[in-house]
């Protein structure tokens, strides 16, 4: 188990290095940041001075090495546009994105699993079929369209919920939260649904098909043949076996919730990291883009690692391999 964890950790490290390289080198071709940093009234000496300051004339390897060295210490340099440390800007924006991701992940997982189980157990029922049909909408409509439709319905027509922003937030110094105020909570509803709907339908369909598969298994028949009550068959015997493959996909989906918050944040003008990234692209703010990419890949790698370790917790057959080893 320890050897396995270490090996996984090492692999994760390699992945991060490669992502860092790709991020860093690709962004060199996006455009010249000097153009956007200095206005029309620039002189050649201004340009050269800034190039020197930013280290843009150094060889590629030196720039990459310096980037990595600083990145490890949490220093992603100064934003070209805002002239403030990138780490500081991201730290300021992260709570908004993380709270949004948390709420939509919770929404997606709770309803995804519950509806998945429901549609599997009552697979011929009217309600289950209706849910399955409606879920097609969640899979096939693009996120921005769902967001816009929700805004139209609940903000414009009904006027129940705000159409943009986080509402009032409480500043805890290191964290800003929208959970503490009524308007903050209300502002979370529409973006969370928009962001989580796709994941919810995906999880629901996955849980349903896995559960149907498991319910056909011999051990479920045997449990029934022993007179185990239906509730226990479904939730003790079947659900646990359903969860193993569901955890993988769900874990990866949570990563993409954070990564793809960009679209939702744009639609709802949510002041999070995604919106920051979109703005950074417009201004070729390389340090911000690089930092964002690194952040997302760290998150994906971490989630993958956690998912793998969760297997051990759920499936005893994997735990048995720790002594055998292969």
């Amino acid at each position, binding site marked *: 188990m320890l050897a396995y964890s270490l090996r996984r950790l090492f692999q994760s490290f390699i992945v991060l290095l490669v992502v860092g390289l790709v991020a860093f080198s690709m962004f060199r071709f996006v455009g010249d940041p000097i153009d956007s940093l200095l206005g029309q009234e620039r002189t050649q000496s201004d340009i050269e001075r800034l190039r020197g300051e930013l280290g843009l004339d150094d060889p590629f390897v030196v720039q990459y090495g310096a980037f990595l060295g600083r990145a490890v210490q949490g220093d992603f340099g100064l934003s070209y546009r805002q002239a403030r440390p990138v780490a500081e800007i991201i730290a300021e924006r992260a709570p908004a994105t993380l709270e949004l991701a948390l709420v939509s992940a919770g929404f997606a997982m709770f309803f995804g699993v519950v509806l998945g189980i429901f549609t599997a157990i009552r697979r011929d029922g009217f309600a289950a079929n209706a849910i399955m049909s409606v879920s097609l909408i969640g899979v096939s409509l693009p996120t921005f369209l769902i967001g816009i439709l929700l805004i139209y319905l609940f903000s414009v027509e009904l006027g129940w919920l705000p159409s943009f922003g986080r509402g009032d937030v409480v500043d805890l110094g290191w964290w800003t939260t929208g959970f503490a105020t009524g308007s903050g909570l209300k502002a979370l509803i529409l973006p969370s649904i928009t962001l989580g709907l796709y994941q919810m339908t995906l999880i629901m369909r996955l849980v349903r098909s896995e559960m149907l598969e498991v319910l056909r298994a011999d051990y479920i028949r045997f449990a029934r*043949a*022993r*007179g185990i009550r239906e509730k226990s068959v479904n939730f003790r015997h079947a659900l646990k076996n359903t969860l193993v493959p569901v955890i993988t996909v769900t874990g990866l989906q949570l990563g993409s919730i954070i990564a793809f918050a960009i679209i939702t944040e744009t639609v709802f003008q949510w002041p999070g990291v995604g919106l920051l990234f979109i703005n950074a692209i417009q201004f070729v703010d390389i340090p911000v883009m690089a930092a964002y990419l690194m952040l997302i890949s760290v998150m994906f790698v971490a989630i993958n690692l956690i998912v793998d370790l969760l297997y051990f917790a759920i499936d*005893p057959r994997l735990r048995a391999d720790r002594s055998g080893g292969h």
Partner: protein
Amino acid sequence: MSEAVLSIRNLTVEIPTRGGILRPVDQINYDINRGEILGIVGESGAGKSMAGNAVIGLLNRPAKITGGEIWLNGTRIDQLEGEDMRRLRGKHIGMVFQDPLTSLNPLLRIGDQLTETMLEHLDISRDKARKRAAAALDEVGIPAAAQRLDSYPHEFSGGMRQRVVIALALCAEPSLIIADEPTTALDVSVQAQIIALLKRLCRDRGTAVMLITHDMGVIAETADRVAVMYAGRLAELGNVRDVVTHPEHPYTDGLMGSTPLASKGLKRLRQISGSMPRLTAMPEGCAFHPRCEFAQDICRAEPRPKLNGGRSACHFPIQQPAEETA
């Protein structure tokens, strides 16, 4: 004869399909007495398992009992549904499935699977159930039973798992065990042990056993009486010794001729030409007549031959021991 634990009267199971109604079990009759082992033999698709599933109320939809009666210890059970049937399963009827590798829930400790079953049916405390679980494992010949309670199924070999399955089927002390091909998935050397175990346990407790198998050898060694099924119908029913040595029905005769038995010496095995009729194309009259060398006009016409309390459902039962004529 002592009182019958299980009585099946004219049991018919039907599957409605687009092409018409299929009848995988067609008006079969038999009793199983206390402590008696009734072997049910027949080819794949002869309706052996379907009859067993009908008794324990685990027919897969759309198959359902459309005629006849099933009596268990003097109570009619074929009309029971839902909760009533569930309470019967495990408590009064135990079942052993074919494949021990898939019969046990891989994610639950075997001790938990045992105690769960006992707590469901018996009015005992959790501690007591655990003690009885250990005793049950010990009884089926699992070494160091008390320590193995916390083991998972994958930590046992196939034969050991089938012992666990038997312990599970017997743990609430049912009066009838349905063993559906209990040794088919096991090594030959383990088969004999499992059969001996099943036989001993049921003798000791007076449990009636419905032993479903296509292996005549297993039946010859184990069962007291044997029912031969062909195309959903009962072809022959009688004491094992009589049926094995002097089969009356030409099908049984063919079945015996195709089975290598030590008592017969080394002779070329016979085969029955043709194959069992498909349920979608059942012939008129006796289902066996297209393959039968003795078939006459009466065999091809309705009404088809029935057991009617006799041994075989045949117009021309074989009078002489088959081995001397072959």
